[in-house]
């Protein structure tokens, strides 16, 4: 649905996005992650045609962003960061206007607007003036705008920024529901959000690609801790050679506490560790999976260049 190749954006001497390439498959929910100022919004603005890339190719729904700009824009429902809206209009007026602007045939406008109002659950404020709405409602009016022309691709720039936990859950549920029939690309700097709704993650930092893959892969260095009443060497011997077990740290006197760094699937490894320890005749008191915090992974990915 989205193909990005060697995308670069320069503002004078400053490089906002540097040689970025990634794909988003049809039907996928892709999380676009990065610290503030990483170039997320700049990238999204190039995808949606608001900014012209300095270099590189963008293809959306098979259309070339440079030569088929209108077709590209027609394929996208875009919610910009901070959701700028006309504050002097009523919600329903605004959505009707946007639907007309997006080429929804006149007779179908009411139907489209009603559907968008319902999906974004803003039907209860449809006759209110946008300027008088709370941040959460405005955010969802922006979402309704992105949905109103029923495009195959949604690009949402920080869709949950500034919402309270309930509203965040609503937006996530909505994105999950929409993902059944649409492709979604959403930017965020909130990690649990990505885990909650995205099948795939692209991480950028200072305009450059740092990671692309599934959120689970991000965790990479997961570990297992266990506690057992046994001799340290005996425990070490039992664990050595179990598939997936990396470095082992054991400490303790009578009761040993061990921490095992796991390579690969942590769940399968935990099962193998349990069997190995039991087979060695050691009584296990506790066996626990420790997820490397995504925050740590994120920090590792996005700060490593400072030191090099």
């Amino acid at each position, binding site marked *: 649905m989205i193909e990005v190749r060697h995308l670069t954006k320069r503002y004078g001497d400053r490089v906002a996005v540097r040689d970025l390439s990634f794909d988003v498959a049809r039907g996928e929910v892709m999380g676009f992650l990065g610290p503030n100022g990483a170039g997320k919004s700049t990238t999204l603005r190039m995808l949606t045609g608001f900014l012209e890339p300095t270099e590189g190719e963008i293809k959306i729904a098979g259309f070339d962003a440079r030569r088929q700009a*209108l*077709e590209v824009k027609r394929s996208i429902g875009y919610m910009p960061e901070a959701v*700028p809206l006309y504050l*002097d209009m009523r919600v329903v007026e605004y959505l009707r*206007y946007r639907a007309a602007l997006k080429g929804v045939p006149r007779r179908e406008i009411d139907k489209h607007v009603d559907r968008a109002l319902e999906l974004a659950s803003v039907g209860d404020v449809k006759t209110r003036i946008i300027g008088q709405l709370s941040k959460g409602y405005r955010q969802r009016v922006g979402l309704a705008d992105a949905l109103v022309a029923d495009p195959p691709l949604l690009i949402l720039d920080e869709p949950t920024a500034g919402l309270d936990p309930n509203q965040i859950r609503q937006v996530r549920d909505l994105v999950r529901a929409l993902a059944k029939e649409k492709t979604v690309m959403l930017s965020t700097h909130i990690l649990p959000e990505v885990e909650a709704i995205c099948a795939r993650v692209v991480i950028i930092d200072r305009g450059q690609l740092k990671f692309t893959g599934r959120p689970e892969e991000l965790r990479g260095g997961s570990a297992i801790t266990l506690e057992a009443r046994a001799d340290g060497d005996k425990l070490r011997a039992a664990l050595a050679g179990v598939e997936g077990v990396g470095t082992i740290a054991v400490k303790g006197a009578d009761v040993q506490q061990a921490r095992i760094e796991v390579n690969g699937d942590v769940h399968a490894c935990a099962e193998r560790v349990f069997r190995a320890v039991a087979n060695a005749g050691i009584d296990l008191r506790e066996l626990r999976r420790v997820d490397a915090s995504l925050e740590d992974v994120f920090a590792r990915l996005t700060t490593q260049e400072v030191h090099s």
Partner: protein
Amino acid sequence: MKALVIARREIESYFLSPVAYVVTVVWLVWCGLQFYLLAGVFASAPSLSASANPLSAFFGGSVLFFIPLLVFAPVLTMRLLAEERHTGTLEPLLTAPITPADVVFGKYLAALLFWVCLWLPTGMYVWITSQFGRIDLGAVLASYLGVFGIGLYYMAIGLAMSALAKNQIVAALLTFMLLSGLFAVGLLGFVDTLSEQRDVIDYISLWGHMQAFSKGIVDTRFLVFDVTVAGLFVYLAWRALDDRRQS
């Protein structure tokens, strides 16, 4: 087609803001006063009526009559694009499946329509005058054509400045300076020693412009000037909006 959708919203938003009403009221009071005074002058001096009437004097007699427009035109056009950029609504606007040209034409159309709305109530004076004497309908129509011509380039200049300026105030000031500049050049026509430059000055002069039209003389040179300047500045607005994507 999309330009019409934009123009419609723009007109609606004019009437949602108090600015439109303030401008309209002040303008109509000013016009009413002007017409009242002119009617008084003509009523007390019947001999004047041979060569002119309150209507021709209203449209072309006094160039000072146009001074409020030098302020109102910038006020009408300053928000067109500068506000969209300032509040960020330019982003949803330009990421909709429309071209920058649609946006520029839509906004220009809306400004022109408002300009026409500003002048529509003056039709009342035509009706009043017609109740007390004969009016030259051709001259009246020509006067309105002249007024429309002025609107063509006043609104275009305002639109272009709104596209270029960082905020509304700067846009209004730039428009005011440009319009005042053109207005002042026109006034140079009153300086006798500049006879050689007279042809060019007359071309630009609002006074000369409205003098001709108010007498019923449709001088196409003035219309060519109006349309040319308008086209130039609408093009400038379009380029400013389109080039923004590079920065």
